[in-house]
């Protein structure tokens, strides 16, 4: 099948090439409506598009299990259709034909199709998650899922799920780790941005900014390894030294490492918005005799605040959805506590654990992954909408 397709496409490329040559030569006359190449493309499109449509429809039929078009029918009919298309296309070519309009119409349609793929992707994600999540919420009530404080899915296989899928401990872990990450990332990120944009020379800034962005480019699985092998024992040792007990899977470790990961998001975006604050505002303030820090704190930062908040919101949604660091370094124990030295679990860890674990595919625990995924999706989408809103307001202030 694959081979015959390759041969077919090779054949069509070659014949397409000849058609192009032929038509171009034929239409090398300035009185024609369009440039020669357009007539050639017109013919080629006629050759390819009908056959492609046939392929597309037979694929759809096959995927929906409606009807299976066999290869023995498909290949000859594709060839016939290609020949017919070529003949039709070539026949239409004459000086009056508005080939450019036709070709550009096809281009435009394909551009619209490409643009709608991003919509299809979103719809796909939402549908894929909602469909399975519905099955889950069929077994577990939404209210209980959102307000329950007890997560113990191991007894739920027998159809009795009362009080075992309370997601609050799981979300508590997620938020705890996110908060720790933001405690690391926000002050360091914003202060770095302030230094880079207000104090540093151009040279320092040009090295510091890309250097920090390296931190953003490091794959999360690498951070996870770093957290589990290096940072976690350090945290435990440090806690021991001050007389505290820390679990190896404590929430602090992934929080700190995630914070390091998010620093460049916040510093780069904040740097951009701080630099976008008009020079005149600073000059006016400095001319009144303020120090640099007073100007920054009283004038520049408030002006850049919406942008900085948007950057932080982006950072938060990154932290909420981060998976590998927590899978490798955070615990699996749903734990409702304020102590970051204890092990906690997160939404993403539960999703991975449920989908790669030993449970049956339709068990409530496996399905719970989609319930959790749905809530995670809603939260991140809300954060995103919020940050877009904040940025919009900021823009209208200065332009």
């Amino acid at each position, binding site marked *: *099948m*694959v081979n015959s*397709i*390759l041969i*077919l*496409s090779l054949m*069509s*490329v070659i014949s*397409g*090439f000849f058609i*192009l*040559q032929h038509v171009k030569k034929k239409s090398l006359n300035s009185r024609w409506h369009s440039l020669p*190449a357009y007539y050639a493309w017109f013919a*080629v499109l006629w050759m*390819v598009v009908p056959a*492609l449509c046939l*392929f*597309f429809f*037979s*694929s759809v039929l*096959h*995927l929906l299990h409606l009807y299976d078009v066999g290869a023995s029918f498909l290949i000859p009919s594709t060839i016939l259709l290609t020949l017919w298309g070529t003949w039709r296309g070539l026949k239409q070519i004459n000086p009056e034909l508005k080939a450019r309009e036709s070709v550009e119409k096809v281009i435009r349609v394909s551009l619209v199709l490409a643009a709608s793929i991003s919509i299809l992707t979103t719809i796909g994600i939402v549908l894929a998650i909602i469909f399975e999540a519905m099955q889950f919420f069929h077994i577990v009530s939404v209210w209980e899922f959102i307000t329950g404080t*007890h997560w*113990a*899915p*191991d*007894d739920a296989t*027998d*159809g*009795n799920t009362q009080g075992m899928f309370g997601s609050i401990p799981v979300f508590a872990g997620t938020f705890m780790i996110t908060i720790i990450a933001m405690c690391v990332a926000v002050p360091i990120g914003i202060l770095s941005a302030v230094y880079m944009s207000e104090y540093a020379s151009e040279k320092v800034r040009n090295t510091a900014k890309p250097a920090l962005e390296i931190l953003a480019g490091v794959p999360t699985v690498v951070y996870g390894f770093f957290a*589990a092998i290096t940072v*976690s*024992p350090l945290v*435990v040792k440090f806690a021991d030294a001050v007389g505290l007990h820390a*679990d*190896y*899977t404590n929430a602090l470790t992934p929080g700190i490492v995630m914070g390091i990961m998010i620093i460049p998001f916040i510093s780069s975006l904040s740097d951009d918005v701080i630099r976008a604050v008009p020079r005149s505002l600073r000059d006016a303030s400095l001319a009144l005799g303020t120090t640099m820090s007073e100007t920054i704190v009283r004038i520049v930062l408030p002006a850049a605040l919406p942008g900085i908040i948007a950057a932080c919101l982006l950072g938060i949604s990154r932290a909420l959805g981060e998976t590998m660091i927590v899978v490798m370094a955070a*615990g*699996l*124990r*749903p*734990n409702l506590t304020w102590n970051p030295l204890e*092990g906690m679990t997160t939404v993403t860890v539960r999703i991975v*654990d*449920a989908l*790669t*674990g*030993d*449970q*049956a*595919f*339709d*068990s409530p*625990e*496996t399905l719970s992954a989609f319930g959790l995924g749905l809530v995670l999706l809603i939260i991140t989408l809300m954060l995103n909408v919020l940050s877009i809103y904040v940025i919009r307001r900021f823009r209208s202030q200065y332009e």
Partner: protein
Amino acid sequence: MKKQIFAIAAVAATCFTLGANIAHAEERIHIVGSSTVYPFASYTAEEFGQTTRYKTPVIESTGSGGGMKLFCAGDGLNTPDITNASRRMKAKEFKLCAKNGVNDITEVVIGFDGIAIAQSKANKGINLTRKQIMLAVAAEVPNKAGTALIPNPYHKWNEIDASLPNRPIIFYGPPTSSGTRDAFQDLVMKHLTKHMDVYTKLYKADKKKNKKYKKYKTIRTDGVYVPSGENDNLIVQKLIKDKNAFGIFGYSFLEENSDRVSAASIEGVQPEPDAISSGKYPVSRSLQFYVKNDHLKKVKGMQEYINLFVSEDMIGRDGNLTDIGLIPLPDARREKARHDTSVHKKLTLADLK
């Protein structure tokens, strides 16, 4: 002109390949299933790939349940050829297989896996009974009089039994999604609770609402039992650090870290290969894989892979798999496994009951 040739080539090639249905030929063995069998299966797969001219089989660790689901999804060549399991196939799964046209299955038992209750080597040896362990980890236990269930009050071992040391109870064990945890619950908890009136009478009182009391297996979640990653180095580190703690994991992992942790005896028996394969050590289970016999002729090297797996070199007493923690079957049962695979013994529903 050159540019245009490239453009057309790219357009045509991508469109045609994307538009076409994706067909692929099965040239290598595709295996799914239990994460407990995974290390043994992947070791065998590598041996197979290195010592023969066949391609190395692909093994995906999907868990026993996930493996069965994929295995039973159909008979086509895009479904797995073999699934590994750390428990036997359930009747429900067998019926699913039959419904989807997978009728000819052979079950091959390859060995045992023992579940060890381990502690730091710095501790003195300890002997526990299954009942003591159950009382230590269950969420609800009988009160002293044995008349009703109360939330687990025990935080020290000597509260359960005066003969045990005055030592806090802490368990680092597998998480809810793990097959090892299922096995632990089956072999330690359900094994006892299904015969204990104090649990079962609740079930009998209200069969619908109290279904979980029929075979009670709920593990406490008040911090005494800490779910941790399976076969994770961190578990061992925790045990070394926290001398009071016990860890629950597979025997193979115990053996790998025998320089740092030691096992508790259960009912007087240490988890040692002989004790496990003879059934003396109570917390153990069999490991097996299921073969889709229809694929034997269509997938190259499948029979050879199975033959290698059940050979003395792999699952025998001094086989390579025992080096990485598999507990071998008794001689007669190994012979039976080889016999079953050579005649493609067909699994029937009656076998599973």
